């Protein structure tokens, strides 16, 4: 089974993580069974987003047959600056998507820069993955309200609401065709409900891998014990992410 992980992190100095070489992370992910991984900056969510975009792009430069790097921007920089950085990240750094983390980046979805950023990401064909499931800034329906105003932008709820708000994530996904759910860090019982309730073509697998070893395996394991048939797993693990961001992986 080919597996693309749609939610991994390049650990830096924040959130208690330890910086590690990208080669080490790749080896760990490959051992866990991944053929590819979308990867996000962590430090860039807290400070110097442009500099940390550079760091992630440079770190993954020789690993584009495995890693798909996402950039971040800071809405507090204002829409104009954030959009410039988004464009730079795509054109100069070849980054493929945008990661936003409202509570870590301390912005509300009602911040005036958010909608322009999301719309520009849609124009550029860059999917936007949000941290979600954490009140007060990152609930699925807050994100859905923004997604509803940006129908051309692919919006991914990076945690499918987490355990507390998965029900809201299901509602968001069922209501809006541009919303995808990544089941990262959701308990397996809820994961099953999510998969059974939503368009299976818009469910993604993710692990939060990168922070520590063993995360990826545990996340994969959840999908193996909830009665999913092979065809469903194939969509979640591989087909769906490939449709969103077609990538030529070395082993995929």
């Amino acid at each position: 089974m080919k597996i693309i992980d749609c939610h991994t992190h390049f650990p830096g100095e924040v959130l208690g993580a330890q910086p590690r070489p990208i080669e080490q992370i790749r080896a760990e992910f490959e051992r866990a069974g991944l053929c590819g991984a979308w990867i996000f900056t962590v430090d860039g969510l807290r400070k110097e987003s442009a500099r940390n975009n550079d760091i992630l792009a440079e770190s993954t430069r020789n690993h584009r047959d495995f890693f798909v790097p996402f950039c971040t921007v800071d809405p507090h920089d204002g829409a104009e600056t954030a959009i410039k950085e988004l464009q730079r990240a795509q054109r100069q750094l070849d980054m493929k998507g945008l990661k936003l983390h409202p509570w870590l980046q301390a912005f509300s979805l009602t911040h005036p820069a958010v909608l322009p950023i999301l719309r520009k990401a849609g124009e550029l064909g860059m999917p936007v993955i949000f941290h979600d499931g954490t009140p007060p800034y990152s609930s699925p329906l807050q994100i859905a309200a923004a997604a509803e105003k940006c129908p051309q932008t692919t919006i991914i709820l990076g945690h499918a609401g987490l355990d507390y708000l998965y029900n809201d994530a299901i509602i968001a996904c069922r209501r809006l065709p541009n919303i995808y759910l990544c089941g990262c860090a959701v308990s397996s019982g809820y994961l099953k409900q999510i998969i059974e309730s939503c368009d299976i073509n818009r469910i993604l697998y993710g692990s939060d891998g990168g922070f520590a070893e063993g995360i990826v395996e545990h996340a994969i394991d959840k999908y193996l014990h909830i009665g999913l048939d092979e065809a469903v797993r194939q969509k979640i693990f591989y087909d769906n992410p490939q449709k969103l961001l077609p990538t030529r992986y070395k082993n995929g």
Partner: protein
Amino acid sequence: MAMIIIDCAARIEAKNGKLQASDWLEEMERAGIAHAVIAASDEFVTVYNEQGNRQILELARRYPEKLSGLAAANPWYGEKALEQLEEYLVEGLKGLYLNPQRQGFLLTEKIVHPLIKVCDKYAAVVYCHTGTPVCSMPFQLANLARTFPRVKFVMGHAAWSDFSGYDVFPAARQADNIFVETSCGGKGLVRRLTDELAPERVLFGSGYPRSNARVEINKLKSLNLSGEIENKIFYENARNLWNLDLSD
């Protein structure tokens, strides 16, 4: 002519196993509140709905000029909750009081739908405590309101605190059948509600006993809203929403 004030958010405190209205009636007098839509609190909202509803109905009948009541029905009681709600709406209570964080459900869970259907049947209003993650947030109420567009909902306490400055507005705009009640939040919020939502969708609430009726009245009055808008918020909107017949 003095402004008539209707309070849309007073809860009668439970003391010694009984709802005690005397403190609230005195507070009404002090604050100059003409009429209040009251609900039970504590165990009478969560567990002892029948006893609480009976006391609320008795108060509304004893003080018809001053009090109207809402029924509490915990959705986890299933059929019993539906019977309870229907019985007390027929007897004259004005709507349903929901407090998801206390009653233990998410506003997005379907367990609450049968109760809302009863409200739909009787054209009864749903007042909902909001502002508490993860169960009673503005967009969750908006989702419920969109699911039941004929039913009128009150977004209690304007989702104070974490959501007041943000989600209240886009959530309320998602569903025209949502009214926003002003208690507990800041002054600026009420100003924004009148400017950015619609004065017709704003309701005065004391938030008693969580807040103080006089403080809440002063909060609104200090905004120096036009007399017309003040009248809508303090009186007209509530009278229309709850279908109150307040004879002079």
